[in-house]
């Protein structure tokens, strides 16, 4: 389970197309619904309207109202219904219109879905899609990165793809997983990021991925921050330093072997979270390195994250709090010189 190198989509039916991150998610969902009739989708405005971001555009026409269900504005009801359906053998996929609204469904997800296996021995194979993240002036209610809440809740898996190929493969892996999976899809990547995506259904293993190999320092990131890290650490921007970028892809399970392997090779680490800094996923990564990578460190473990404030509406203020290419690059430059 060490990190796979470079951008390797899982082998699938021949032929890849260039799709946006959004199209890849949509295609993954559609392919899996075609392949497995137990899969159905639920959410607010996902049927007739095709979803707030149009992920399920055309689904109602293809799969009908029994498998594409428009729900009331009630996240607790959406997830609770999905849990019940999953227990009797279905594979529900719930869309939260924005990740921020998951707090209304928190109890059903954390207390019911996450603990069902431990309490009753029942599998709850649900997938909850969370359009998350900021960067487009969405303000405090439409920009959050709530992944750490769910990392802290035993029984849930948490995945966060950064590329179109991974978004499709990890979504299908999430749907096929027997556990409840929280799927964080970054809104700011939806239409900005394009990549080669294999045709047909395929599941991507829940492991980290080396987005760019290097040797002098490793930046550990996930989701949109992978792209920030890649841009920040281009060799020409850092006097030719060879900086590795490790894309975690999955936060639970966390690919500890890949993280420690990168630390062993590079000895200097910058961890980037778009989430608020305190107790974020990166804090867990830092703790792991402190405990099990200590002997390989050649400098302090450095974190770059959003300060502990809500995301501002104001575009300049938002840009000031989110980890930027410049901030990540400066952190790398400082640590490389240490």
């Amino acid at each position, binding site marked *: *389970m*060490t990190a796979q190198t470079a951008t390797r989509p899982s082998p699938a039916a021949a032929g890849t197309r260039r799709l946006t991150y959004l199209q890849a998610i949509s295609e993954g969902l559609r392919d899996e619904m075609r392949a497995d009739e137990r899969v159905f989708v639920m959410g607010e405005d996902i049927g007739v309207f095709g979803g707030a971001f149009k992920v399920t555009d055309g689904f109602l026409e293809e799969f009908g109202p029994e498998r594409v269900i428009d729900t009331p504005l009630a996240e607790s009801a959406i997830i609770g219904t999905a849990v019940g359906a999953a227990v009797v053998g279905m594979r529900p996929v719930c869309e939260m219109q924005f990740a921020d609204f998951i707090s209304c469904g928190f109890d059903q997800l954390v207390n019911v879905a996450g603990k069902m296996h431990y309490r009753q021995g029942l599998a709850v194979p649900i997938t909850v899609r969370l359009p998350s993240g900021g960067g487009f002036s969405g303000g405090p209610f439409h920009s959050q990165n709530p992944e750490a809440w769910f990392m802290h809740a035993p029984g849930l898996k948490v995945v966060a793809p950064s590329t179109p190929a991974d978004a499709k493969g990890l979504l299908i892996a999430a749907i096929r997983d027997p556990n409840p999976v929280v799927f964080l899809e970054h809104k700011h990547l939806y239409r900005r990021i394009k990549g080669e995506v294999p045709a047909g259904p395929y599941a991507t293993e829940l492991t980290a991925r080396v987005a760019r190999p290097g*040797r002098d320092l490793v930046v550990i990131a996930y989701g949109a921050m992978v792209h920030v890290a890649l841009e920040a650490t281009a060799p020409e921007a850092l006097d030719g330093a060879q900086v590795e970028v490790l894309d975690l892809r999955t936060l639970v399970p966390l690919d500890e072997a890949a993280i420690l392997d990168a630390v*062993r090779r590079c000895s200097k680490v910058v961890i980037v979270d778009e989430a608020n800094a305190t107790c974020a996923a990166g804090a867990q990564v830092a703790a792991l390195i402190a405990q099990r990578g200590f*002997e*390989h*460190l*050649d*400098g302090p473990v450095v974190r770059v994250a959003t300060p502990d404030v809500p995301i501002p509406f104001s575009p300049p203020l938002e840009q000031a709090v989110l980890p930027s290419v410049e901030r990540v690059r400066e952190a790398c430059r400082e640590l490389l010189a240490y």
Partner: protein
Amino acid sequence: MSSSPTETTTVDIVMPQMGVSVAEGIVVAWKVAVGDPVAADETVCEISSDKIDAEVPAPASGVLAEIVVEAGETVDVGAVLGRISTAGGAAPGGAPADGGDGGAPADGATAPAPREGGDLRRTYSPVVQRIAREHGIDLAEVRGTGRDGRVRKQDVLAYLERQRAGAPAADGPAAAPAEPPLHIESPYIPEPAPAARPAEAAAPGGVLSAMRRQIGAHMKRSLETAATCTTWMEVDMGRVEAWRRTARVGGRTGMTALPIVARCVIDALAEHPALNATLEGDRYAVHEDVNLGIAVSLGDDGLIVPVIHRAQELSAEGLAVRIRELAARARARELTPDDVRGGTFTITNPGQWGAIMATPVINQPQVAILDLEAIVKRPVVVEGPDGTDAIAIRPQTILGLSWDHRALDGALAAQFLAAIRRRLEQWDG
């Protein structure tokens, strides 16, 4: 102990106890000459016992007054090796004695630089300290290119590179280092040659090192003592090869075949305990615990066989971890004499170079040794489920067992090898 009528007292340097079962040791070299100043805990001489090297620290600060045991001599534990005289004023050798007022030594007046204190340039990160320890580097000699002159990983690696290249390791600009020569897993995986200890060995010609002499004596004695025969058996390693690549060991994926072979050997020894034995004179003893010796190459310096005690309690993964750890400690010269004692069976594994057969020499007083060489893909005839023969490409190896004909006969050796083979070919973890 001894004292003199002047205000100077002397402190004895004694041969330390290096392991519970060690009775004697040899002085390899003195690091300090008579009359030289020494600081407490500074190394005064190097000693060796059963191929394990150690350093003797000065028991007190002062001046080396006398060398009692010269380099090359072997003495019992507790014997006095030399004496340090501690002057009342504790003035270091070269310092002008009159300046001091008999109280605390005047810091900074003389050569010995304060090693600890506020100098951040001499605060080393974990990885730098570990590389230095593994390669015996004095970090004071490494120039730092980091912030405020801090020694970084690349500095110590560059220093190591220059040392290897034979340059006097003087500090130029830190070149970009190659892949860091850190963890190795077992003797089976090639690694960059460990940095030869600067003083010893290496040079062609000259007198054999202490370790080579000991290896030679041991091997010669074995061949003279035992009635050594060697039996070979071919093994299909297909299942082992498939399994080992996905095994998870110590947070990493993949392991060598050695720990799996070791685990199968342990099980085969339970089936044939007569091979888990020692023979001294005509005293033949079968042992309950499998104390498994694993031969570890020390590069040019020689070979050592650390022992995994009670190996029967470990899984293949557990054995992999122990082998890796022992190999690393062996190469870092950190084994204690107890780590190499009490073996009941030994495995040697020089297969990384592609050799396919060997006749290993039995590690006395054990009665057998197993040799694992390269695993090579070969066309072999296999029988299908319907009884038809076909040629298939299979990873094959040849296990060689050297055994002592005084203790056992060839039939048992073959049965034992067959027991190992059966387990390897049916291996499923």
